[in-house]
């Protein structure tokens, strides 16, 4: 049975899916579903019947583009048959710069060192007391501070006259405050670390936190010393506080008023003059930079 004739007749019924006449083959960027046709446009056709020519040209190119798309590997999904697209080759600009990596918090560092992995837990937990499912945290959760219990037993060591509800509320407040303080501390340390370790931040990695805490502590200590000195009598007559910071390394040395060596005196005075007026008649202030700085600040 020769069915080729039947097949041919069947094929003739439908229009062809191949496109002839493309001297330069089309370039495709399938990641963006785009086709680039470099073939020159037929100007006479364009002038004669513009819209029909454009439509036929577009139809041919769309046919070729779809032929390419349908040749991509496909997977079957809930949404039907999906074609797997390659990565786009045409570079399009982003709308925002790359995100700067946030430095590690204290907990993250500890968890990494210990090898603690964060496992996702279910939101609803079975509560044995009531026999129903309750959220692990949040509104009507089993984790509640317990101030909503209708009865609270006085713990063995506590004063029987104490208000236990009050005690529970105070305890929760304290916990929240502690958490807040820790969050603040993390944020400050992160800021110091980012500022200090600009190199790795610009590369796109997390900054090194090791010196950040020491730096932060040093910064705070410096500020305390400055504030101590900022009183009317430069901190001389302040009441001594127990456990206060003593400024380190500040020793005052006094040169004798009248020296035999006058050259030293001259050198000292000239260096003071240089710092005030400027060396060799140069300006200490770079006027150009100063103008730029004030302009940008405005």
């Amino acid at each position: 049975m020769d069915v080729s004739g039947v097949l041919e007749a069947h094929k003739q019924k439908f229009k062809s899916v191949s496109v002839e006449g493309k001297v330069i083959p089309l370039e495709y960027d399938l990641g963006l579903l785009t086709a680039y046709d470099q073939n020159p446009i037929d100007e006479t056709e364009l002038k004669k019947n513009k819209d029909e020519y454009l439509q036929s040209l577009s139809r041919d190119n769309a046919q070729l583009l779809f032929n390419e798309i349908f040749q991509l590997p496909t997977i079957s999904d809930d949404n039907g048959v999906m074609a797997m697209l390659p990565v786009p080759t045409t570079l399009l600009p982003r709308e925002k710069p790359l995100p700067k990596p946030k430095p590690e918090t204290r907990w993250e560092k500890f968890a990494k060192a210990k090898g603690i992995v964060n496992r996702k837990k279910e939101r609803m937990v079975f509560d044995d007391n009531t026999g129903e499912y309750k959220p692990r945290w949040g509104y009507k959760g089993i984790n509640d501070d317990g101030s909503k219990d209708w009865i609270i037993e006085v713990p063995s060591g506590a004063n029987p006259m104490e208000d236990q509800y009050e005690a529970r509320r105070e305890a929760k407040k304290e916990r929240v405050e502690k958490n807040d303080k820790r969050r603040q501390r993390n944020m400050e340390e992160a800021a110091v670390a980012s500022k200090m370790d600009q190199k790795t931040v610009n590369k796109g990695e997390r900054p090194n936190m090791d010196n950040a805490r020491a730096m932060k502590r040093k910064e705070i200590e410096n500020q305390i010393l400055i504030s101590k000195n900022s009183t009317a009598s430069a901190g001389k007559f302040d009441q001594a506080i127990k456990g206060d910071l003593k400024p380190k390394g500040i020793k005052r040395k006094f040169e004798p008023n009248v020296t035999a060596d006058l050259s030293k005196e001259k050198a000292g005075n000239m260096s003071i003059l240089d710092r005030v007026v400027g060396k060799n008649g140069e300006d200490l202030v770079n006027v150009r930079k100063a103008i730029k700085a004030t302009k940008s600040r405005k």
Partner: protein
Amino acid sequence: MLRTITPRNARVKRVLKNREAKTEENIKTAIFIRGSQTSQIVNDALADLYMLKKPHAVNFTKKNQIHPFEDHSNLQFFSQKNDASLFVIGTHSKKRPNTLTFARMFDHQLLDMMEVSIEKGTPMKDFKTPKSAIGMKPCFMFNGDMWDQNPHYIMFKSMILDFYHGQTVDKVALAGLEYVISVTSGPMTSEGKPGKIYLRTYTIVLKRSGVKLPRIELVEMGPSMDMTFGRMTEAKPDVWKQSLRVPKELKPKKKKNITKDVMGDTVGRIHMGRQDFDKIQTRKMKGLKKRTASTEEEGESGDKKQRVDDSDDEE
């Protein structure tokens, strides 16, 4: 200029988090603005482009005193307030009739912008044909040999792709490719200036063919615009370079140590560390054990003794 918002509830916090810089970005939102004077053609064009860009589009219905090529500070404010990085500004004046200005922002600062004048435009409502659904991903076609050569064309191609490509996905539903935007470049003018460009939008109809691949037919859906290029502001090279940076996570990963040999078989390479062959744990073979001189003598005498007792056990 804008006050920095400190979130006081979770919803605001979520919105702010969505707006900050991410490795994989959101779909760019576009703002469609009318200038102080507009014409019917410009209004129709803006309305159509807005429809194609929905739902990631904001339409400013009131007229604004906005001249992007003279002063683009307004754009920065709009961009920050609406978290939008694409703009289309429609204006009409005697000097520049029926003008659309496409602008892009990077980090809420102007990246680049270009102006096109519409010579002839047919809006969507004039085509009495079925339209595609809102929010579908289009296919694109750029016909003509100018699209890689002239800076006007390069920027326009980049703009159109940026506006309408939607989200960069790694898979697409074959049934969901509903329309195609086709841009054709006309011949250069006699003075050597860029010629007209023809933008057409068609819905795709898949027809049966004798083979597996379908036959494509196009039905014009609109908008259809014939445009000429106007002024253009290109991006500063360092800002442009920064905007094209791809984060490490999204770079295509190279597969290392896997090659295909001449026969077409996949060959892998494993790199072993240094091995101390004396210390490898292997199977014990008593005969291969190292013997010192004293033990050899004893062994021999022992063997002799054994030889006397049972000769079969030797060796």
